[in-house]
C-alpha cells in the first residue's frame, strides 16, 4: 500500500522538491553549501580584498594576518582573494558542460533504450570501448593538442562526461519500456518520438536529475584534477586545483596555502553530493526504504 493520497497540488514542483530537500539535514547542509559557493562566485570580484595578480615581494609565503586572512603564496599574492575567485572558472565550465552532457547522453540513451536492436547493440559496444579508456586520457590528449581554453574544455568535458550518461539513461528507459503503459501507447499507434516525449521522459527525468547532480560533482573533480596536473586553467588565473598544486611544494613552510583551496573545493563537492543524496531521497529514488503497510 502506498501512502495515503496527497491532496491535489497546484504549487510548482520545483519549489516543493527544494522544500522537501531542505527538510532533510543532508539536503539543508548541501543546498546551503552550493548556494554559498554560487553566490560567492557571482560577487567575489567585488568583495575580494586584493587583485588576484597583485604580488607583494615583502610577504612571500606569509602566514595568516589581519591584512592577509589566509596568508600569501610563493609570489606574495593574497591567498584569501585567490580562494574567493578560484572556483569561478570551474563553475562556469562545468555549469555549461554538465547540462549539455546530460542532454545529449540522456536523449541518446533513452532512444537506444526504446529502440533496441542492432543499432543499440553496436552503439553500446562503442560506449563500452570509450569507458574502457583510462578516464582522463582523452581529455589530456585533446588539451595538449588544442590548448586548455574554456572553448576547448567545455565541449570536451560535455562530450566525454555524456558517454556514461548514455548507459544510465538507457537502463532507466529500459525499466520504463518494460511497463504496460508503453505497450498501451505502442498498441494505440503513437510515434516513437511521441512515446519518448510523453511516456518515457517524464519517468526518467528524476533519475537523470540525480545523475546530473552526481555528474556535476565528478566533472568538477575532473576539472580540478586537470588544473592540478597543469593541464587546466592557465596561470595567473586562480583555480583551486592549480593553487593546491602550487602550494604543495611549500607545504612544509606554509601549510595554510593548501588549506584554503582544499576546504573551498571539498566543501563545494561535498555540498553537491549531499544535495544529490537528498534529491534522490526526496524523489523516492533510493531503494533502501519501503512503505510500511
Amino acid at each position, binding site marked *: 500500500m502506498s501512502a495515503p493520497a496527497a491532496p491535489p497540488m497546484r504549487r510548482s514542483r520545483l519549489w516543493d522538491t527544494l522544500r522537501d530537500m531542505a527538510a532533510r539535514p543532508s539536503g539543508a547542509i548541501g543546498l546551503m553549501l552550493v548556494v554559498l559557493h554560487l553566490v560567492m562566485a557571482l560577487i567575489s570580484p567585488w568583495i575580494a580584498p586584493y587583485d588576484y595578480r597583485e604580488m607583494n615581494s615583502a610577504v612571500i609565503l606569509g602566514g595568516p594576518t589581519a591584512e592577509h586572512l589566509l596568508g600569501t603564496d610563493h609570489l606574495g599574492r593574497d591567498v584569501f582573494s585567490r580562494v574567493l575567485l578560484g572556483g569561478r572558472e570551474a563553475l562556469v565550465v562545468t555549469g555549461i558542460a554538465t547540462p549539455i552532457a546530460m542532454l545529449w547522453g540522456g536523449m541518446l540513451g533513452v532512444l537506444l533504450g526504446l529502440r533496441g536492436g542492432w543499432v543499440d547493440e553496436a552503439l553500446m*559496444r*562503442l560506449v*563500452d*570501448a*570509450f*569507458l*574502457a*579508456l*583510462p*578516464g*582522463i*586520457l*582523452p581529455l*589530456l*590528449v585533446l588539451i*595538449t*593538442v588544442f590548448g586548455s581554453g574554456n572553448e576547448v574544455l567545455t565541449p570536451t568535458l560535455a562530450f566525454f562526461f555524456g558517454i556514461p550518461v548514455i548507459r544510465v539513461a538507457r537502463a532507466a528507459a529500459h525499466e520504463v519500456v518494460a511497463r504496460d503503459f508503453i505497450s498501451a501507447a505502442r498498441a494505440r499507434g503513437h510515434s516513437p518520438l511521441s512515446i519518448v516525449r510523453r511516456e518515457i521522459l517524464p519517468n526518467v527525468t528524476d533519475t537523470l536529475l540525480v545523475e546530473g547532480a552526481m555528474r556535476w*560533482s565528478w566533472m568538477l*573533480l575532473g576539472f*580540478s*584534477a586537470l588544473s*592540478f*596536473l597543469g593541464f587546466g586553467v592557465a596561470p595567473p588565473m586562480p583555480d583551486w*586545483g592549480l593553487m*593546491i*598544486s602550487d602550494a*604543495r611544494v611549500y*607545504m*612544509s613552510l606554509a*601549510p595554510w596555502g*593548501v588549506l584554503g583551496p*582544499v576546504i573551498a*573545493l*571539498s566543501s563545494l*563537492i*561535498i555540498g*553537491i*553530493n*549531499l544535495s544529490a*543524496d537528498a534529491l534522490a531521497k526526496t524523489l523516492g529514488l*533510493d*531503494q*533502501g526504504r*519501503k512503505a510500511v503497510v
Partner: protein
Amino acid sequence: MIQLLLRRLALGFVTVWLVSVIIFLGVEALPGDACTAVLERDAHGEALAKCRVDMGLNAPALARYVDWAGAALTGDFGVSANGQDSISQIVGYRVRNSLLLAAGALSVGIPLSLLLGVVAGLWRDTWVDILFSAGAIFAMTIPEFVAATILILIFAIWLGWVPAIVLTPADAPPLDFFPEFVLAAVVLTMIMIAHIMRMVRSSVIEVMASDYIQMATLKGVPYWQIVFRHALPNALLPAINVIALTVAWLLGGVVVVEVVFNYPGLGRLLIDAISDRDLPVVQAITMIVAATYVGVNLVADILGLVLNPRLRSHHMSRG
C-alpha cells in the same frame, strides 16, 4: 550457460577491438606524427620524408593499423618516439609497479569495505551506520589529490612517519618501494572502500527486507545464521561487479595519485608520455589499460554467472 559465456567473451573482444580502432583513429586525427615528434624542429623537407619512409608512415592507414594491432597482440608495442627504447620494456616495469600499488590497496580494501558495508547495512540508521556512511561520502567526494595532500601534510611533514614522495626508480626490486608507497596505497584504499561499502550497505539493506529473510526469521533461524547463510550470499553477489570496476580503475586510472606521490606506475608514465607527445607509448598504455578493464569486468561477469544459481540455470525461466 556455455552460450552465455561465449557471448560475453565475444563481446569483450569486440570492445577491445573497438578501443584499438578508437586509439588508432584518435592518433591519426591529431596533427603531427611520430616523425615530427622525433625530429622536433628538424621536421621538414628531406629529413622528415626519409624518416617517414623509414618508419613506414607512408603506408595506407589500414595497413599501418594492421601492423600495429598485429604486433600489439604479441605484446610488441614498437619503440618509443623519443629514442630507440622498447616500449614493452619501459611499460613492463610500470605495469608491475601499478600492480604492486593495486595489490596493496586491494588486499586491505576489499575485506575492510565488505566488513564495513555489512555492518552499516545490518545496523542501518544507528550511529555506526551514520558514521560509516558519512565517512564514505567524505572519502568519495573529496578529490584524491586533496586527500593525498592532507595525508602528506599530516603523516609526512608534521609527523614524519613516512616519506612524502617516492624516489625509488621504476626498475627497482618491489621491496624497495616499501614504505614509500604506503600513503599512496592509503589514499586509493580510502576511495575504493567508500565505493564498495556504499554499494554493499544498500544491498544488505535490500536483502534483509526481503521475504526470504522474514521467512528464515519465522523459521526460527538464529540471527547470525540468517545473516551468514541466507543474507550475505545474496547481498554480496552484486558486489562482485563493483569490485571489478574498482580493480580496473586501480590498475589503470590512478594518474593523479601516482603523480602526487611521484610513484613510477603506468599513470605517471601516461602523463609523461603525453607531455612529451610520445604517441606510441600513449597508445600502448591505453591498450593495456583498456584490455585490463574489459578483462576484469569479464571475469566479474563470469564469476557472477557461476556463483548465482538463478543465472546459472537460465533455461528454467517461466513466461
